[in-house]
Structures are given as C-alpha cells and as structure tokens.
C-alpha cells in the first residue's frame, strides 16, 4: 500500500472579486518530497500557497494535511497541524529581535526549556543568526532575513514547509546555501517542502517534482528532470 501523501490538494478554486485566481488545482506531495510550483507572475503561485495555509478563503475544493481536512481552518491553527508557510519576503518581524522572532515560531506549544533547545539548533543551522541574536531583525541583510524566516518556521518543527520565493533578491550563492540546508533537513527529519519560484531553471535543479501553473490551473506537472528536458513545455510555460 503506497504511503498517503502528506499534502493533498483537491480541485481547489478561489477568486479575487470576479477574477478567478485558482481554477480547480489538484496536487499531492509525498512525505519528504521537495516540489516546485512554477509559472509566470499572476499564474496563481502565491495565491495557491495562501489558500493552502488559510490566509486566502477558498471557494471550493479541499486541502488535506496528513489526511486531515484543513480547508476552513483559520491560518493561525495550521501550525498545529504541522504546516508552516513562509510568505514572500519571509514575513520576518523587523521590530522584534532575531531571538524573539525565533521564539515566536515555537510559542504555540512548547515550554521555555524546549524553546531554548530549538533555539540552539537554529543557531547551529544558521550560524550568522547567532551573532545577531539580540539585534532587531530589521538590521539583517536579505540573506540573513531569509535564514531567520526559515529558522522561525523550523522552530515549529513542521512536517510541511511552504516557501514563497525564498530566493527573491538574494545572491544565487546565498540561495544555494539555503537550499542545501533544506535538503539536509529533509534527509535528517523527513521534512516536506513546497517551493514557489519565479526562476524555473534554478528551482527545478533543486527539487524532485514540479507543478507549472498557468492562469490559475495546473498546466503541466512531473518530475523535475522531465520538465527540464521537455523543450516545448519549457518554452511554452517557463520562458527559457
């Protein structure tokens, strides 16, 4: 019997006013998978992540995490079901210190002692954060902010991590380091990652599965290698 996918999306539709943003999107992500959501701007990538994490109300369809229906669950409860969304730009709270940001990630369940342990793990994972632990997050560089955002998400010990354009405006070098960290985490903890990326080529080079959105619907999906090698599809949807 194949293992149940950890994240399952069944014909999800949503709209902004009269404009349909997602049109019956279905996808499933196996435990430990790293999958890319690709497509032109306005294709609905960010809306998909926001609908999964409860920030955007959906019109119809279902979102299942670990088999549990979270479609109508408010965003603040998703973290309790093991799903954490890192929005575009990271959603770091610039007024709080690095340490406070990290604490916030684990505040919903854990005690003081457990948080201290997690905090140390994050500093081990992202050493640049340790030096800046009591600085306001607003003083961090772009790369450090993204590390902080992912670190805060990991503080919740998620099973599924949704990442919205973590490479936006970062030097490719930094992006690669962050992606390497996620790969290591998957190997160590079985973390599942859904990655929204504008830059299809680099995203497909680090994921094992890809979904291409076009005008709010899944146009193509398949393994990353297959998507990369399909010239016609690449030209039509990914523009390279």
């Amino acid at each position, binding site marked *: 019997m194949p293992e149940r996918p950890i994240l399952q999306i069944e014909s999800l539709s949503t709209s902004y006013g009269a404009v349909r943003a997602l049109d019956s999107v279905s996808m499933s992500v196996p435990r430990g998978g790293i999958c890319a959501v690709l497509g032109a701007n306005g294709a609905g990538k960010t809306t998909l992540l926001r609908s999964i994490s409860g920030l955007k109300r959906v019109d119809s369809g279902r979102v299942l995490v670990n088999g549990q229906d979270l479609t109508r669950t408010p965003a603040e409860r998703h973290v309790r079901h093991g799903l*954490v969304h890192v929005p575009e730009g990271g959603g770091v709270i610039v007024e709080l210190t690095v340490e406070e940001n990290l604490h916030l990630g684990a505040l919903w369940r854990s005690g003081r002692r457990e948080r201290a342990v997690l905090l140390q793990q994050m500093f081990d994972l992202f050493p640049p954060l340790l030096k800046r632990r009591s600085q306001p997050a607003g003083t961090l560089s772009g790369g450090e902010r993204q590390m902080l955002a992912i670190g805060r998400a990991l503080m919740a010990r998620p099973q599924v991590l949704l990442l919205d354009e973590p490479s936006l405006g970062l030097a490719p070098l930094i992006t690669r380091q962050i992606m390497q960290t996620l790969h290591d985490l998957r190997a160590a903890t079985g973390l599942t990652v859904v990655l929204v990326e504008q830059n299809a080529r680099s995203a497909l080079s680090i994921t094992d599965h890809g979904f291409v959105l076009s005008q709010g619907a899944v146009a193509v999906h398949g393994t990353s290698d297959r998507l990369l090698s399909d010239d016609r599809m690449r030209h039509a949807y990914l523009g390279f």
Partner: protein
Amino acid sequence: MNHFIDLTLNGLAAGAVYAALALSLVIIYQATRVINFAQPALALIAVYIAYTVTQATGNYWLGFAAALVTGLVLGAATERILIRPVHGTSPLNAVIVTLGLLLVLQGAAGMIWSNEPHSFPYPLDFRGRFSPSDIFALASVGVAALLLFGLYRATPLGLRMRAAAFHPEAARLTGVRVGLMLMTGWAIASVIGALAGMLATPPFVYPNVLDAVFIFGITAAVVGGLENPFGALVGGLLIGVSLSYVSGYAGPELTTLAALAILVVVLSVRPDGLFTRPTARKV
C-alpha cells in the same frame, strides 16, 4: 522657591494622569494604528460605574476595582464590535467610529446619571502639599507602567501581542491569534484609561469631566511619540509639570494654549515626537 516646589510636585501628580492616558492611547495606536478618541468616554463610563458601586456599598476601593473591570470589558468590546470591522480600511474610518462612540457614551452617561455634577471622592486624603492622593496617583501609574513593561517584554503573551501589532499576517502564520491579541491590547489600554479617569475625576463627576484631561493626554502622547510607551510617560510628566508652571506663574486659563505651544514647538523640531526613532521612509 517653595511655590516652585509646590508647582513641580502638583505637576508631577497631574502629569501621572496624563501619562496614564497617553500610555493607553499609545498601546492602542501601536497595536491597531488607531487613535482611540473614545478613550475618555470609556474611562468616563468606568468612573460612573465606580461612582454607583461606591454609592451602593460605601466602599471606595470596591468602586475602584469595578472601574478597572469596566474598563477591561469596554475596551475589549470596543475592539471586537467597532474597530475590527473597519480594520484595514481608511484610517479616517477608525477616527470617525471612535468619535461616534465618544458621542454615544457621553450622551448615554448624561441620560443615565444626568448632566449635573455629582461629588466624587478622592482615593486618599487630598489636602496639603503633595497629598497622599497625589502620591497614590504617581505610584499607581508607576506600578501600572512597570507591570505593562514586564508583560510586553518578558512574557510570551507580550511577545504575541507585539508580533500581532507589528506584523499581523506573519504573526498568524506562527500560530498567534491576532484578533484576540488586539482585543487584549485594547482591554489593557482601557484599564489604564480607567485608572487615569479615577485619578483625574475628583472632586466632581459629570459627562465632560475628562475632556480636558484627554486633550492633555493626547498632547502628551503626540509629544512623546505615538510609537513609544516610554515617550508617553515622559511626555505626560513633561506636560504635567510645564502646565503646572504656566498655571501657577501665568494663569490657569493659559494651560490649553500652553499645551498647544509645547506641541507645536516639539513637533516642529521632531515631527514624529520626541522618542520615535526616525525610520527611513519608503519611497
């Protein structure tokens, strides 16, 4: 010289009240970007409840406690019922809603307790220079400020409240119930507002009794910088002491003009108040 010391001490006691009101405004402003113009009316209702309880039981402190509880409930209810629906719309909407609430509550107070003044007791002996009541005012506001500081800086609830205020969406994604946190912020602010009302009202209570105090409170908050609770405290004491000198040396009818003058001078030098860190504006 004696006169000067008297004025300073009186100014500090009055300033404590302004500081408390300023603090309640700043807490709410930080959390929801709203200046709560209904604050004096919320405090007014709390004071009238205290008046009624004290009349019925003969115990001032029971009334005092009732006022704080009333403040808590009213603050939470205001956020939930009136502010949340206009959250995220034009800032003017929140201004208008709170002004509307001000009118409704002041009118309601007049309907229930009449527009005529009733005598209202001081917490402690109020006679003489720097009376026990003055000391009580300073001490209670000081304690409230310390508790508040501890709550915000050192507790998980405080961290959640700050996160909800600074970046609601990010806070939600980490599991914070943002609505509840904002409501808590309004409730706490209104308790402090009620405390200010209890300190400022004596010797008489009537529907407009807190209007002038509120003006000085908002002046203090703006002078200190609306983003900074510490600024509210300093601003309150500064306004209290300055106005006390103006009143003592130049005449009490000049206090509102003096408050205006202080405001204009401070803001012309620092448009975001004394204690707001200048941030790079988005261009």
